[in-house]
């Protein structure tokens, strides 16, 4: 391994321009992937915020006691899909309506609003089918008059989420493939630059795995360096967008680390493919 490491350092020193070109190419292809990831992340975040507003509201018949409502809310809260169920009495509903309407609050003077049980579902259980099934079960309580949950709105939200998910996956995959191809081509240049050395290594009896080792290490190192550079570029881009366009979120440390590992992995795969093809040909 120490020989492989020395070879990599030698190569960086001997052909600094080619090595810098390799790292920069990897950085820019990962930067494009990073920007795309950032857009996908922020769209997902926005959709998740919308999903938080998915709520089932079960209006109760006039005269239902808070005790009955409390017991029903307790039962509903024990459903596996349900995160919380809270009761809103007639008085609370009036107060809420008045506060939501601000300067028009007088409209509700003397009005009677029905009480309700407001049900929040757990994250990941807010799809149209689950919402509908919970709504139907809540409706079975004898004192529940009506259940509202914005059926159409939830369906649209989910369709949008699915489209965004599929488009994100397809585009992400395409970006990743393009990155692997570009990185493979860059590493191929490094392999060609050392083709004489490779042929001599083979002549004196080096095994293919021995020849491959420094190239794999080099691909890995270039992937990590390129990944780091891409991360910095993406961070700068996000800071600029935050300052001049719109407030966005950045990758968590874990995702950033995964991105870095991804860079290293495609550096490794690109190298393995390039050097493997070269070894088969010579």
């Amino acid at each position, binding site marked *: 391994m120490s020989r492989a490491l020395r070879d990599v350092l030698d190569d960086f020193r001997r052909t600094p321009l080619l090595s810098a070109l390799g790292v920069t190419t990897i950085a820019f292809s990962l930067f494009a992937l990073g920007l795309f990831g950032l857009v996908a992340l922020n769209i997902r975040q926005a959709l998740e915020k919308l999903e938080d507003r998915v709520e089932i509201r079960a209006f109760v018949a006039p005269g239902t006691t808070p005790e009955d409502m409390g017991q029903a809310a307790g039962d509903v809260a024990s459903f596996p899909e349900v995160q919380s169920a809270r009761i809103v009495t007639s008085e609370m509903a009036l107060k809420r309506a008045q506060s939501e309407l601000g300067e028009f609050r007088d409209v509700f003077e003397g009005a009677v609003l029905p009480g309700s049980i407001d049900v929040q579902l757990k994250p990941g259980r807010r799809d149209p089918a689950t919402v509908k099934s919970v709504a139907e079960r809540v409706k079975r309580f004898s004192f529940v008059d009506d259940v509202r949950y914005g059926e159409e709105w939830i369906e649209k939200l989910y369709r949008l989420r699915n489209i965004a998910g599929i488009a994100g996956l397809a585009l992400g995959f395409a970006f990743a493939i393009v990155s692997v191809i570009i990185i493979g081509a860059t590493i191929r240049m490094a392999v060609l630059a050392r083709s004489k050395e490779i042929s001599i290594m083979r002549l004196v009896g080096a*095994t293919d795995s021995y020849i491959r080792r420094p190239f794999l290490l080099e691909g890995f190192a270039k992937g990590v360096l390129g990944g780091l550079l891409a991360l910095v570029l993406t961070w700068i881009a996000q800071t600029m967008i935050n300052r001049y366009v719109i407030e966005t979120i950045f990758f968590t440390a874990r995702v950033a680390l995964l991105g870095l590992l991804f860079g290293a992995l495609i550096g490794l795969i690109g190298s393995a493919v390039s050097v493997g093809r070269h070894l088969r040909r010579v």
Partner: protein
Amino acid sequence: MIRFTRVSKSYPRTGTAVNDVSLQVNKGEFVFLTGASGAGKSTLLKMIYMEERPTTGEVRVAGTSSVTAKANDVAKLRRKLGIVFQDFRLLEHRTIEQNVGFALEVIGAPSTVIGGKVARVLTQVGLAAKGRALPRELSGGEQQRAAIARALVNDPFALIADEPTGNLDDRATRGIFQLLREINAQGTSVIMATHNLELIRRNEFRTIEMARGQIVFDSAEPASTAERRTP
């Protein structure tokens, strides 16, 4: 030690390079391989170190068969062979010592062994004082000596030399040939492809002549003498 049994080699684009060759080279032999360009000499040599595999027939070198050898077997076989070319094939950015040591390094020899072996072999080829030089700082003859040193450093049982004097003047040619004779005298077989008929005439070594992919003369087999065709 090296045995060709009814070996043919053809390429999809250029056709037959070697045609039905059977041949044996024994331990400690010195063999000249001669013939016009394109006669199949280089292909024959490449089949010894298994850079090329026969299309039909079998090449067997020190127990390794061209029919069954895997990539790793070929690598191991080459550690027991020394290979020298007309164009030296030295690494330009490494010193002569590093070039010679490279052959030991890539087969995983410990660094404590490498220094001593390199010094010994550089002395043997007469380059003890040039170890720190870069290849471009040496003459053609010296570069070929360095390439021979690299080929010798693993103590090979046979040295395969493809036109080793092709790029050298008469004086350097004599020097390299003398070195190859000394190596042979120490027990290493030498198989040398050459166009230099003068060299062949002056030395009483076994001579194999090729034409159009076939052996047309082998001084070790009197019967073939009758078939000899002048090129």
